[in-house]
């Protein structure tokens, strides 16, 4: 049985027909070049290219190389990849859907709890979250009356210029001898008006009558309509970094990380080249700004709450200033000793 390789741009597909049709698909865009696939491959068929070079500089080649003559399509690389960049399919089904050993990781947002504030959507380092929401119209939150006396109005346009929501519209015109007026009409859109009263106060001839009903009757008159919305995490893009869980103001997001461990930075060795900051798929690392002039800030800052211990930063650091130690691999129970050994080998 021969394995064939199909290169599509920087994506790689390996196929082997037989009793089971096996296909290994590598999606270059998804890869963070952490090197876990290279480490776990039992036949040394995978070589991960230099992480910094692949992320920081333009390259024509794929982020990893797979040796078609060595690969046995076992799927270990696919099971370990935290970024869904590798996928082994058996007879067309992804092993993520089959009873195959794999990482235990998840991320979900409880739509009942979610208040659709979009903090997670903004914070997600992989743009994996989409929050949709339907906000009420302004008219539903404010009530009042506005009326312009067109006979008194001199069409000076001050109200139109000052209206903060562009609710006033004047039909301006250049006066002609047969129609010697500067404007023909003035109208206010009650759907747009927020009854702020600026037009009434600026009007030089008191042509505008405006009353906001909230002020005399208080807050109780108007009930705020329910804000409907939806939350969605794209399972292909999600890297289980917990940014959504940590930033959510109402604890609606729940994330399980695939690995546990420890991230150590040698501040004295670090030369601040920023490679790790750019490489990290979870936005764990940053360069803090100095609090005030003359005060030296921490060289490289980490927040391990967001770290999934993939090791991309360690692999990318040119001066070995970063150490990623994995202490636990969360994987589904398996009887296979080979798979257990493979998962456990990623602990340091």
């Amino acid at each position, binding site marked *: 049985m021969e394995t064939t390789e199909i290169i599509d741009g920087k994506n790689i597909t390996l196929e082997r027909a037989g009793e089971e049709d096996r296909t290994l698909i590598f999606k270059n865009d998804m890869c963070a070049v952490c090197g876990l696939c290279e480490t776990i491959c039992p036949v040394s068929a995978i070589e991960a*290219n230099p992480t910094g*070079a692949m992320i920081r500089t333009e390259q024509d080649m794929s982020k990893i190389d797979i040796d078609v003559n060595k690969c046995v399509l076992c799927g270990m690389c696919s099971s370990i990849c935290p970024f869904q960049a590798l996928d082994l399919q058996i007879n067309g089904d992804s092993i993520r859907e089959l009873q195959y050993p794999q990482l235990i990781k998840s991320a979900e947002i409880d739509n009942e709890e979610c208040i659709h504030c979009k903090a997670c959507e903004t914070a997600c380092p992989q743009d994996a979250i989409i929050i949709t929401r339907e906000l009420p119209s302004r008219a539903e939150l404010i009530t009042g009356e506005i009326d312009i006396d067109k006979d008194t109005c001199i069409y000076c346009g001050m109200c139109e210029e000052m209206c903060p929501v562009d609710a006033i519209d004047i039909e301006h015109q250049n006066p002609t001898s047969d129609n010697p007026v500067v404007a023909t009409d003035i109208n206010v859109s009650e759907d747009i008006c927020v009854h702020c009263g600026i037009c009434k106060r600026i009007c030089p001839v008191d042509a505008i009558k405006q009353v906001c009903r909230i002020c005399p009757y208080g807050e109780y008159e108007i009930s705020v309509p329910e804000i409907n919305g939806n939350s969605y995490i794209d399972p292909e893009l999600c890297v289980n970094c917990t940014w959504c869980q940590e930033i959510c103001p109402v604890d609606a997001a729940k994330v399980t990380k695939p690995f546990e461990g420890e991230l150590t930075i040698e501040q004295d060795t670090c030369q601040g080249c920023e*490679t790790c900051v750019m490489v990290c798929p979870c936005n764990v690392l940053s360069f803090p700004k100095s609090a005030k002039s003359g005060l030296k800030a921490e060289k490289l800052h980490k927040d391990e709450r967001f770290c999934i211990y993939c090791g991309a930063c360690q692999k990318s650091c*040119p001066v070995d200033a970063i150490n990623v130690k994995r202490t636990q691999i969360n994987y589904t129970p398996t009887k296979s000793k080979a798979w257990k050994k493979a998962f456990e080998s990623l602990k340091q």
Partner: protein
Amino acid sequence: MTIGLKTYRELCHGCGNCVVSCPVNALRSEEVAGGKGPSDDVDIIMIVEDGAIQIKNADLCGKCGTCVQSCPVDAITLEEL
């Protein structure tokens, strides 16, 4: 595939950005860390020699891409050797 440093001396203006931005150079030489070329014979990856970039110790390179990003004229690259 082996990726490594490649230089194009004919493009180089000799600005030295790569020399001082390189984190490996900076770690190995206090003078480079301070923003200038080394005056002693410390082993660093690259120096400016006769007005253009010269690789001295390619094996020290961690292939992080910092020098590539700092070069204003694409005279240093990381590419397949």
